[in-house]
């Protein structure tokens, strides 16, 4: 199809835009002397219908198989002239443009110099055109379904939007229940809506939606393929409870010999649970789960005479034989909504978190003030780890109520010493909210907030912050240096930086306003999807301004905090954005893939993997091939993933991987043409 080159060169006057400075006749004369040039012409407006007709006529009558248009920027009219070629069945990639307007006639005044430069530009285009190859423009079909990973608020919202639009959604959640971090929260700032009240209806919706297949207590194990055709493998971990039979009555949990022995993750370890449990009353699905690390029967093979839970379950739902189930399916798009972890306050040892019982993280405090939490919403002093030692029949002392509570902001945010330079965006406001909740419940409690800056930038934020201060919460500007104990009291050592006064602040309870950090298991998803990370280690979007929900890989989108800290409305907005972005290819049913992709010469490839490492799209993999009887590894490009940047071609030492239309053998002659003389 490539054939011996027969090139037509078409030099455009563009009215006087080009011809006013560049001697077009002279350029045409010069072009006609270049190798393989069969015809060189000029015309007032090449992009006009008669101009394009000149080209198509020549292609048909002279049998041209390469076309050079010397006119404006290819960024302007390359698509136009590609179509011109296509209209007479010439492969559109046999076009090369010479930009003699934007980068020549419009920027140079001297006609002689401009004409000379125009000739060089045309020559470079001709020598490249001689070596152009026909490329295929490929389309792939898109499976009308989406995988959403993570069922926090972002994942739930995205799943609902897509399902409502009529596409199938597979919603995969690692934990036994959907809801994510949002369902742990008490109230939301600044409106003080009850978090559970606004979220539970959506949780129920995802479980019941006919287009959503919800997989909780499940993990994505393998992802292959590319946009339109991802192959997914999910492991549904065994709960040892038959989901169809379990009625969620809770008899089993009460019966469990280990009831109340283990910290409940949902309550951030403040509350306790047994080996069989429902993380929280509104959990969706409302099905019990056996924790196989702690279940006596599963760890020791023995639980008294027989497992108590099994005895208690009237529905006969408990089955210790149940195994993990592997589910495989295909999707066209993927939304990653894996959320975040809170900063591990132990990394700031000066705050003595984990040393003193009443130094809490804000998320623990959320559970403490939450009406559905372990204390029923009562704010009391904690005596951690003592519960287990309580002897039978011993009278519990009445809980002590803190007389003063101190919040410390920016724990693990804006802090280079722990490697987190960024602002977590939610701490200022949730601190204000929690301070308000304290004041609401314990009017006389003295509430102090240590802060660096208060960032109240969102809708209604500044007003809320103001309100909280008016309620008597004391804000001290300063970053505490140490927390220690003096008698019964915790002492926060700090400097009030507004007055430059060192101070030691006594308090009963300290709440650390911990920041949001990438999940500790981020790596799993990165490895599965080959996502990139930004410098803060959250997942990297394709463009910080214009493609905030896309990733470098087509068909994979980001929603919620996994891309960077954000509050609930922002997470929801991004989820809706991701959902609509994912629906575009699903609705159209087809996507075009880049034609100017990379291609490997497997004969010379040495399989070093430099290209694999360099590719931002994970479009290249090493595969084993048989080279004259020897097993060797060579690079192979997945053309559906390749975006045609060419970084691989520059990384390859043996020139074995090349970018179509920008091959070394196409660019080196251009360099020569521009360099000589």
């Amino acid at each position, binding site marked *: 199809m490539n054939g011996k080159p027969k090139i037509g060169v078409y030099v455009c006057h563009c009215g006087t835009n080009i011809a006013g400075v560049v001697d077009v006749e002279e350029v045409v004369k010069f072009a006609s002397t270049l*190798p393989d040039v069969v015809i060189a012409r000029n015309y007032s407006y090449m992009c006009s219908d008669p101009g394009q007709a000149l080209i198509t006529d020549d292609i048909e009558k002279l049998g041209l198989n390469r076309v050079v248009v010397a006119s404006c920027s290819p960024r302007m009219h390359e698509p136009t002239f590609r179509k011109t070629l296509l209209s007479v069945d010439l492969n559109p990639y046999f076009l090369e443009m010479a930009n003699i307007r934007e980068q020549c006639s419009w920027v140079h005044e001297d006609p002689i110099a401009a004409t000379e430069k125009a000739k060089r530009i045309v*020559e470079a285009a001709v020598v490249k055109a001689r070596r152009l190859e026909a490329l295929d423009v490929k389309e792939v079909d898109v499976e009308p379904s989406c995988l959403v990973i993570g069922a926090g608020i972002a994942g739930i919202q995205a799943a609902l939007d897509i399902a409502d639009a009529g596409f199938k959604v597979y919603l995969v959640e690692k934990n036994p229940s959907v809801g994510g971090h949002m369902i742990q929260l008490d109230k939301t700032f600044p409106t003080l809506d009850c978090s559970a009240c606004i979220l539970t209806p959506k949780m129920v919706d995802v479980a019941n939606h006919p287009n959503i297949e919800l997989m909780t207590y499940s993990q994505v194990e393998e992802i292959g393929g590319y946009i339109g055709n991802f192959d997914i493998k999910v492991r549904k971990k065994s709960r040892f409870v038959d989901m169809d039979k379990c009625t969620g009555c809770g008899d089993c949990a009460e019966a469990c010999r280990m009831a109340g022995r283990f910290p409940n993750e949902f309550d951030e370890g403040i509350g306790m649970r047994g080996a069989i449990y429902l993380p929280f009353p509104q959990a969706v699905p409302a099905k019990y789960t056996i924790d196989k690390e702690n279940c006596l029967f599963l760890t020791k093979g023995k639980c008294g005479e027989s497992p108590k839970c099994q005895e208690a379950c009237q529905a006969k739902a408990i089955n210790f034989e149940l195994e993990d189930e592997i589910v495989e399916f295909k999707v066209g798009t993927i939304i990653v909504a894996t959320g975040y972890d809170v900063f591990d306050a132990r990394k700031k040892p000066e705050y003595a978190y984990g040393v003193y019982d009443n130094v809490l993280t804000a998320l623990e405090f959320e559970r403490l003030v939450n009406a559905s939490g372990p204390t029923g919403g009562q704010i009391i002093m904690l005596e951690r780890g003592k519960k287990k030692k309580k002897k039978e029949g011993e009278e519990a002392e009445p809980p002590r109520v803190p007389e003063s509570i101190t919040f410390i902001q920016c724990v693990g945010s804006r802090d280079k010493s722990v490697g987190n330079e960024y602002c977590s965006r939610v701490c200022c406001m949730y601190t204000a909210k929690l301070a308000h909740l304290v004041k609401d419940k314990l009017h006389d409690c003295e509430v102090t907030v240590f802060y660096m800056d208060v960032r109240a930038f969102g809708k209604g934020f500044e007003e809320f912050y103001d309100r909280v201060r008016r309620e008597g919460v004391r804000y001290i500007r300063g970053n505490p240096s140490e927390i220690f104990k003096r008698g019964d009291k915790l002492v926060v050592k700090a400097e009030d930086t507004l007055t430059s006064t060192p101070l030691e602040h006594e308090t009963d309870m300290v709440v650390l306003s911990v920041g949001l950090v990438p999940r500790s298991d981020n790596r799993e998803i990165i490895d599965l999807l080959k996502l990139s990370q930004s410098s803060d280690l959250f997942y990297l979007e394709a463009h910080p301004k214009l493609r905030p929900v896309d990733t470098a890989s087509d068909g994979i989108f980001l929603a919620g905090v996994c891309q960077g800290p954000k509050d609930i409305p922002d997470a929801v907005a991004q989820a809706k954005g991701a959902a609509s972005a994912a629906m575009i290819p699903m609705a159209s049913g087809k996507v075009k893939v880049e034609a100017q992709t990379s291609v490997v010469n497997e004969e010379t490839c040495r399989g070093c993997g430099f290209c694999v490492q360099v590719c931002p799209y994970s479009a290249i993999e090493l595969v084993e091939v048989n080279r004259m009887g020897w097993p060797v590894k060579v690079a192979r490009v997945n053309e559906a993933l390749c975006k045609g940047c060419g970084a691989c071609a520059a990384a390859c030492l043996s020139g074995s991987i090349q970018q179509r239309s920008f091959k070394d053998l196409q660019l080196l002659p251009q360099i*020569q*043409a521009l360099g*000589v003389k």
Partner: protein
Amino acid sequence: MAVKKLSKDKVKEALQELTKFRLIAPAKSDEVVIFKQIENPDEAYLEYGNSTVPPKRVVFPQTETLFRFLRGSPELKEKDVEEEGTTVIFGLRPCDARAMAIVDRLFSWDYEDPYYLKRRQLTTLVGLACVEPPSVNCFCTSLGGSPFGTEGLDILLTDMGDHYLVQALTEKGEKLQETLSAHLEDAPAGDEKKAEELAAAAEGKIARSINTEGIPEKLPTLWEHELWKKVSAACLGCGICTFLCPTCHCFDIQDEVEETGEGRRARMWDSCMFSEYTLHASGHNPRPTRRERTRNRISHKYSYYPKRFEVIACVGCGRCINLCPVNIDILEILEQVVDAS
């Protein structure tokens, strides 16, 4: 032919005289001695053992334009060697001169190579006898040469201490001697005899040797012998042994064309030790490994060449032994050939 003497303090003026020709002499840069065109007599370095790169490249350049062309045009512009003018290679070793005499047979064989032969015709060789063998790996005497050998030379110089004994050997040599007559004096009586003694002593100092008898006939019988695998195992496939060999003469012809269509056809040294040397366009290579390539190098020198030209294409200069990065030693290979059964 009158025997003359060139006093050492007159060497520079003699060289100055010769710069009216294209004068090539050994020159030292860093520790490397290479023959190059000399404009200034101070550049010449005659106190050398042997040059790293043999002077063959003066008559057989590493890259040589044959003709120029314009693509699509029938006209060619041939290289005119005559333009290079009369050339004098001053101070080359007898083995390297003898090598030229051996290679002459190839270039004037079935096709008379105009470029090479013209250049040879324009060139006068002024040799410098090896009073001391330049290296422990010299073995010229095994191949019919000698530290004082004269084959291929036009003049032989012998270092007599404070002067060189100048012996013209050919008509060309006499002519050159004539040119230099202003700088020459009559040789002291007894110099010739003394030179003969020096020659005998020098031959005695050649430490390595090989009896080549029967090798040309035996080599083809060892085609599949296991010795080739063994002697080539360490070979890196580089071009040192062949490029630095005074008798190796393989070349490749390539066209170098600009995008404008202007181009030249040039020949350049090639090496049978390179993997692309016999690589076919199909991808097939009849000499796929260093085993076949090593076998070819030895066979070409010690079998094919003597069969065709009645002389072994090796002068025993020892360069390939001295400079091989992995100590592949042609004498060891030949000994194995002799011993092989």
